[in-house]
């Protein structure tokens, strides 16, 4: 008889695992990837392929050099690659994908000690790096391309046209925004595909529902005010469905590692991102604000965790003065 000894509980949820969580996210991204391939064709496949490959390789090499068990089996590295690729413009040069991926994994994750230790969302770290380093290649003009294979690609992104009252009437209607027949980063165009996958994640509890709900509320309410005050040319509703707001809410902000652990903290984190997105969209020189909003809120996560320690049911433990 060969029995093992362990501390209770002796049961654990078989369906739940770190790897399973990451696989869930990749599954949830399938509709979005499908739309991306439909709109952007092989550019989409190319970027996703390169990013996944580079991210995995970077992680392997780093682990090898650092003497950690070399494997990417928790699937978090490849996932970073997918998210990064989906947040790039279709015309991004290949070196941008490669460098962005290396930076995302090396500086965004491994330097902190690997999975679970990083403060910032690795994909956003990688994207911020390439956006700032190669601003020319990734500006608003990177999205527009007159001789593009599909109609949608010949237009500016919805949020770019919305910045100017003169061009705001070119803003696409609700239907193109829902199905994704518009220009934008590879994974942000179809709100419907994102909602489909995002809701799946929340139902599976892989993503904390408080975060996307918080982002949406945090963005829509100020957007409505800005609309009333005339700060923005499009409606709050348009803001919700245009750009990467929903993609960010469901797939970027919900990265467990770089978001708070307490329910209250998750709410504050989500709402904070939403508000920051609207402030950046309205008052900064960027038409989009998701990336910086997420990175900014990432930086206060340790504080949020400390501020939102729940009181145990029945109150805090009474400390005996003489014990």
């Amino acid at each position, binding site marked *: 008889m060969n029995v093992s000894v362990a501390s209770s509980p*002796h049961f654990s*949820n078989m369906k*739940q*695992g*770190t790897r*399973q969580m990451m696989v869930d996210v990749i599954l949830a991204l399938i509709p979005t990837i499908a739309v991306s391939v439909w709109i952007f064709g092989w550019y989409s496949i190319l970027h996703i392929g390169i990013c996944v490959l580079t991210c995995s390789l970077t992680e392997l090499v780093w682990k090898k050099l650092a003497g950690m068990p070399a494997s990417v089996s928790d699937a978090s590295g490849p996932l970073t690659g997918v998210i990064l690729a989906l947040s790039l413009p279709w015309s991004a040069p290949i070196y941008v994908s490669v460098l962005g991926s290396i930076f995302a994994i090396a500086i965004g994750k491994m330097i902190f000690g690997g*999975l679970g230790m990083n403060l910032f969302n690795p994909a956003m770290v990688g994207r911020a790096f390439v956006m700032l380093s190669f601003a020319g290649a990734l500006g608003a003009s990177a999205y527009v391309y007159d001789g593009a294979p599909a109609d949608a690609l010949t237009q500016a992104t919805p949020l770019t046209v919305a910045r100017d009252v003169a061009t705001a009437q070119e803003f696409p209607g609700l239907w193109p925004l829902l199905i994704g027949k518009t220009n934008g980063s590879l994974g942000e165009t179809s709100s419907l595909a994102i909602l489909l996958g995002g809701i799946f994640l929340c139902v599976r509890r892989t993503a904390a529902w408080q975060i996307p709900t918080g982002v949406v509320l945090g963005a829509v309410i100020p957007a409505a005010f800005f609309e009333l005050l005339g700060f923005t040319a499009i409606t709050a509703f348009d803001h919700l469905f245009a750009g990467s707001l929903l993609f960010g809410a469901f797939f970027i902000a919900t990265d467990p590692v770089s978001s708070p*652990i307490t329910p209250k903290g998750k709410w504050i984190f989500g709402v904070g991102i939403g508000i920051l997105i609207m402030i950046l969209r309205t008052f900064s020189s960027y038409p989009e604000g998701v990336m910086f909003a997420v990175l900014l809120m990432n930086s206060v996560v340790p504080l949020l965790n400390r501020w939102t320690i729940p009181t145990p049911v029945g109150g805090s433990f*009474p400390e005996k003065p003489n014990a």
Partner: protein
Amino acid sequence: MQLKNLPRFTFKKGIHPPECKSFSEHQAIEVLPTPDIVRIPLLQHIGAPSKVSIKPRAEVAVGDKIADSGGFISAPVHASVSGKTAREGVITLPNGRRVTTVPIKASEEQPLEGDTLKEAFLGGDWSINLDEIDPTSLSTACSEAGIVGMGGAAFPTHVKLMRNEERPVTDLLINGCECEPFLTADHRLMLESPASILAGAKLAAHATGAENITICIEENKMDAVQALADAIGDENIQIKVMLSKYPQGGEKSLVMAALGKAVPTGGLPLDVGVVVMNVGTASSLARMVLRQMPLTHRIVTVTGAGIENPKNLIVPIGTPFQTVIDYCGGIKDNVSRIIAGGPMMGFSVTDLEIPVTKGTSGITVLTHDDIKQANTTACVRCGMCVDTCPLDLVPTKLALAARHKSIDTLKQYSVDACMECGCCAYQCPANIPLVQLIRTGKILKKMSNN
């Protein structure tokens, strides 16, 4: 009574582990044939060890006291078979405590075994006349009979039954939730001897002065709800059906679910005027008063995919696990872990010579398929442990603080409030041994206080 439409009660958070009750829930309670030898531990309860009160090589009859209570929170111990005592030994209990045991070699003649025992234990008439019973005598009698909580923690029952004018008891909750996966001892008892539970409940209410008696049963045991409802008839005892959720039967969760009251952290249900008593304990109380039987036997569920013939057995306290398992056809080859208790809060054992104690609600034999073979990864800070902890703790922080030996953080996050229910570790996708780390944390904190 329309049972289907009864409201369901529950508490916040918690988990839904697979119930796995089907192995033994339809096995009627049987009596284990008297074992050749029993080794009765002198510490089977929470509190101080009992003190041996007989000489070695003494002839004892079943029910004779062999050890006295060792303090206020303690309980005496009785012979569970008739026979001759031997020299005291020492054994390590599943929870890791080393305790003295008194072995008794069973003699040929056993006054209480087989059908006689079963009839005395479960059957017969359980009507009582409370007017003839002095409520204050019950606590003392309980203490004399060595009755402790049968749900697992084995808290001495006489402490709960003591009348305290400063803290009056309003509610008595009879706990028939049995939320641990696999275990069915309470379920079978409710089906086969509902009247003994009711008698015990009335006695407990009589002793504590509780005005309301509520029997709490999870909705996965509607047949037990029916059995008790039939036994109650028109008496003034309520039944509340609870959602099947773990840890519904934990005292704190139960008080919250049934009465909406939070037991203060570090306190007892008594602090909010509630006494919680397991159905098995209530039944023992009735047996003490109506059958003059001290606590000498208990019902043990022997179950799991790794056992040949799962059963619910009436077992003399002190019977070696091996004897019980052999009677159930033995263990299969693919066994992976043997647990005293259920899989959520039980202790794994390797030595099958350890004895059944008053708190052994079951012996669960798990196979390789039951145990998740996954590596521990780093905490991904998903917060699932926070989302399942019924007490609103932050398990991941507690575990981290225990790893880093950070006493201040352990205090800040109320490490002592944890009831070790295991919800957090069950749910953790990274497979982190959260409960084990939290236990370490509690010990670290205690040591730092000295």
